[in-house]
């Protein structure tokens, strides 16, 4: 497996390119922008993007899809049936997405948004805005916040300790680190504890 994180400065978000070594098929997670630099990265490694995996349909995670689809015939996998008017393959908990020999397991993690998904491949987990290093995603109201915490506890913190989390914003982390140090996972920690409501 080849793996490249890519920073999208327009939305301060992360997108991730993962490719199967043999088939050179690649998946792009959360293309928040599509620029020459990303195209060069893809092409210089002889890759073809055949799948777009959307953790949730906020602009900073999908805005590059239109440009991408002009270049590559890629299937879009999302909780929603349509993204930016493009039809998707609606994706649910327990689904498996195969890209070459790569296997992505789909985990529903609602809370930050109703359509939030996480994708797991090997020991890597892509959480979008559900969980980032030291923080949780924002939620629209208290009920959504409880749903968010429940999603994280049930579906992410139960994964093996050394699962590496690649979030939609900010640096990577590990499951064991979030379990130990993420104060926002504490019910007593109010939603307004952090000043960083930026995603």
């Amino acid at each position: 497996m080849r793996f490249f994180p890519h920073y999208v400065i327009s939305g301060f978000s992360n997108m991730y390119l993962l490719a199967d070594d043999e088939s050179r098929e690649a998946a792009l997670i959360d293309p928040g922008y599509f620029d020459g630099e990303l195209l060069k990265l893809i092409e210089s490694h002889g890759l073809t993007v055949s799948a777009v995996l959307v953790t949730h349909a906020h602009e900073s995670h999908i805005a590059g899809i239109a440009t991408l689809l002009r270049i590559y015939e890629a299937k879009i996998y999302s909780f929603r049936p349509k993204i930016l008017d493009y039809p998707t393959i609606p994706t649910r908990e327990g689904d498996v997405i195969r890209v070459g020999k790569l296997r992505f397991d789909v985990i529903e993690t609602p809370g930050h948004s109703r359509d939030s998904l996480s994708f797991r491949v090997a020991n890597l987990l892509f959480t979008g805005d559900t969980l980032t290093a030291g923080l949780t995603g924002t939620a629209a109201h208290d009920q959504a916040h409880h749903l968010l915490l429940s999603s994280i506890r049930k579906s992410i913190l139960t994964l093996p300790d050394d699962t590496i989390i690649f979030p939609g914003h900010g640096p990577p982390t590990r499951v064991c680190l979030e379990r130990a140090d993420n104060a926002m996972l504490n019910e007593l920690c109010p939603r307004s504890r952090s000043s960083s409501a930026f995603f």
Partner: protein
Amino acid sequence: MIVRQSCAAEGCGGIAVWNSAHCAAHLPDAAAYLADLKARLAGGSSFEAVHLSGIALEGFDLSGKEFVCSDWSGASLTGCAFTGVKFNLVFLDRGRLARCRFEGAKVKWSVFAETEITGCEFINTDVFRCNLNAARIANTPFRNATLYSTRFIGAHFQAVEFENCNLLRSHFEMADLSGARFSNSNTEEAFFDRERIEE
């Protein structure tokens, strides 16, 4: 990518270190391994998947080297030189860095969470999108350093000076900042707890 082998020792769940079937704790001859490691590292300039979890290195000069997708979790590095080093996706969480110099280093997408950092120097260093959450940092200057999008959430600082640093989108929420001093750095573009912002 971050594919690791388990230690060959029966019942051990540890991660085998680079070029060995065993984890750091089960190396048959640790001294010989370290000598061999030193020679191998001296003989190359760019390394991928160099896993050194739990290893203790002292006095290694890794200046100018490049490390990609490497797991150094729990490693203890003392008196090592990392001048001009490049780290990309290096995981040195829950480790120890003592008297290490990172002058001119370029560190990105890397994790130093829960690591104890003492007597180190980050001068003219780029620390981009790194995770230093819950790190314990003492007697360590960050001077003319770019800490763009790096997180120090819940970190503890003792005699740590940030001088002329770029703190754009860096995070310090829930950190113990009583031992940190910021001078000529753009704190207004970093994220702190609300109490600090309202000071």
